[in-house]
């Protein structure tokens, strides 16, 4: 059973589980709130105190895995959906890297990778939709060092939006063809995934700082949603029909009331626990990790 660690700015989400016949068998899931942020700009901080703190909690929870999969869920990882020409893998690599470099003004210091989220459906369709992510080399090198100190070897590094899209697909969350927004309302960010005709359209992220006031967060959360709604109308001419809330379960009530009041849609919380072998509301916040399994 693979050990997946979701890396946030000041939290590590440890998840061990495996999907089998549509049911997620979770053996371990817990958070480690770090004594200090893991990232300083693009640099990974790995001092003895931080390593010891993580080691202690991992040992306490019986995690002794040698190989791990990381899911980056922080500003250090840049992620963007792109529409690119359908071509061979080598050219596609180059095109996507160039697109990301141009879009974010990246230097050669960045590593870029992608996955196809919508292949061309017909021979006449010459374009594909991909999700591309970019991270600095020294960030990856820093993470490699940090987990090496813990006796762990990284097998792969994915990014949160990529795994969350997989999670949404795996649990078949989008049932309707009408425009739907899935909100991953976590403790340190709000991420919105817009779907139309069961196809992923676009994604926006709102990071929440620990010092941000609640009223500010509410205003910005609704503002992003309004922008998404306007964008959706511009693209398809149809208003948003459904909003689904996932993420940190303690935010659900606030978000539901806020969306109902400001947007006029009653959001729903999908019953994902029915697809998991454990009845723990905390698992709502492990969507990024569950997308890997």
């Amino acid at each position: 059973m693979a050990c997946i660690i979701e890396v946030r700015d000041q939290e590590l989400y440890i998840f061990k589980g495996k999907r089998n016949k549509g049911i997620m068998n979770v053996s371990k899931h817990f958070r480690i709130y770090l004594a200090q942020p893991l990232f300083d700009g693009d640099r990974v901080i790995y001092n003895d105190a931080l390593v010891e703190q993580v080691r202690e909690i991992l040992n306490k929870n019986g995690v002794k895995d040698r190989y791990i999969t990381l899911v980056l869920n922080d500003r250090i990882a840049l992620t963007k959906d792109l529409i690119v020409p359908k071509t061979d893998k080598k050219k596609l690599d180059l095109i996507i890297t160039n697109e990301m470099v141009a879009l974010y003004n990246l230097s050669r210091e960045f590593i870029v990778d992608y996955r196809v989220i919508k292949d061309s459906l017909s021979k006449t369709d010459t374009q594909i939709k991909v999700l591309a992510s970019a991270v600095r080399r020294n960030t990856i090198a820093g993470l490699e060092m940090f987990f090496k100190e813990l006796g762990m070897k990284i097998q792969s590094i994915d990014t949160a939006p990529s795994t969350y899209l997989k999670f949404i697909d795996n649990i078949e969350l989008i049932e309707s063809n009408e425009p739907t927004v899935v909100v991953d309302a976590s403790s340190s960010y709000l991420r919105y995934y817009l779907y139309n005709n069961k196809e992923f359209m676009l994604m926006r992220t709102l990071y929440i700082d620990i010092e941000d006031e609640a009223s500010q967060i509410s205003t910005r959360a609704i503002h992003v949603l309004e922008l998404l709604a306007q964008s959706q109308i511009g693209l398809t001419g149809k208003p948003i029909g459904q909003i689904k809330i996932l993420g940190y379960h303690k935010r659900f009530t606030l978000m539901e009331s806020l969306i109902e009041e400001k947007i006029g849609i009653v959001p729903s919380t999908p019953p994902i626990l029915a697809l998991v072998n454990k009845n723990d509301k905390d698992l709502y916040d492990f969507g990024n990790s569950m997308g890997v399994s």
Partner: protein
Amino acid sequence: MKQNINLYKKYQADLKKDKTVSAQTTYLVLLISVSLIIGVYGLRVAIETSILKGEIKATQLYLQNEDNKRRYDAVKKTENENQLLGSFQTSLKEINNVFSEKDSISGKVLSEIESARPSTLVIADMILDGPNAIIKFESDTAKDPSNFVRNLKGSDIIQSVEYKGYDYDATENKYLGSLTLILKGNF
């Protein structure tokens, strides 16, 4: 269709590529350095060869120049003349040595002349003039003058013998003649 993002795999591939590029760069630098060294050495050899060829050509032109040939012949002629003059000088020095040392006649000269003289040949007169000795003689037989000259030529102290033959005096029934001896330096 690519289904997963794996930034770590890309990172490792990039590291490997960088190492490969680094090794390739090292080889390239090494290759360029060796090529430069060979190139510089080759250029130096080419320049030196070119200079030598130029010098050879200039020398050939110098040697083939008619004016130079004439000068060379003139020099050669002068050299031969110098050699001749040198031999003259040596001879003169030798003669001068003889002259400077010939202030007396060695008794060995007389004894040599005497031992060369056949018994029937009589020396009528002898004039000593420096290294020359002019001897007038008479004999009863015709073969005595020849024997006398042959004996003198065999002597160690005589450089050369000038002999122009003899005359027969019918009234006296004698053979008369003269010869000139040139003595060697020390005599």
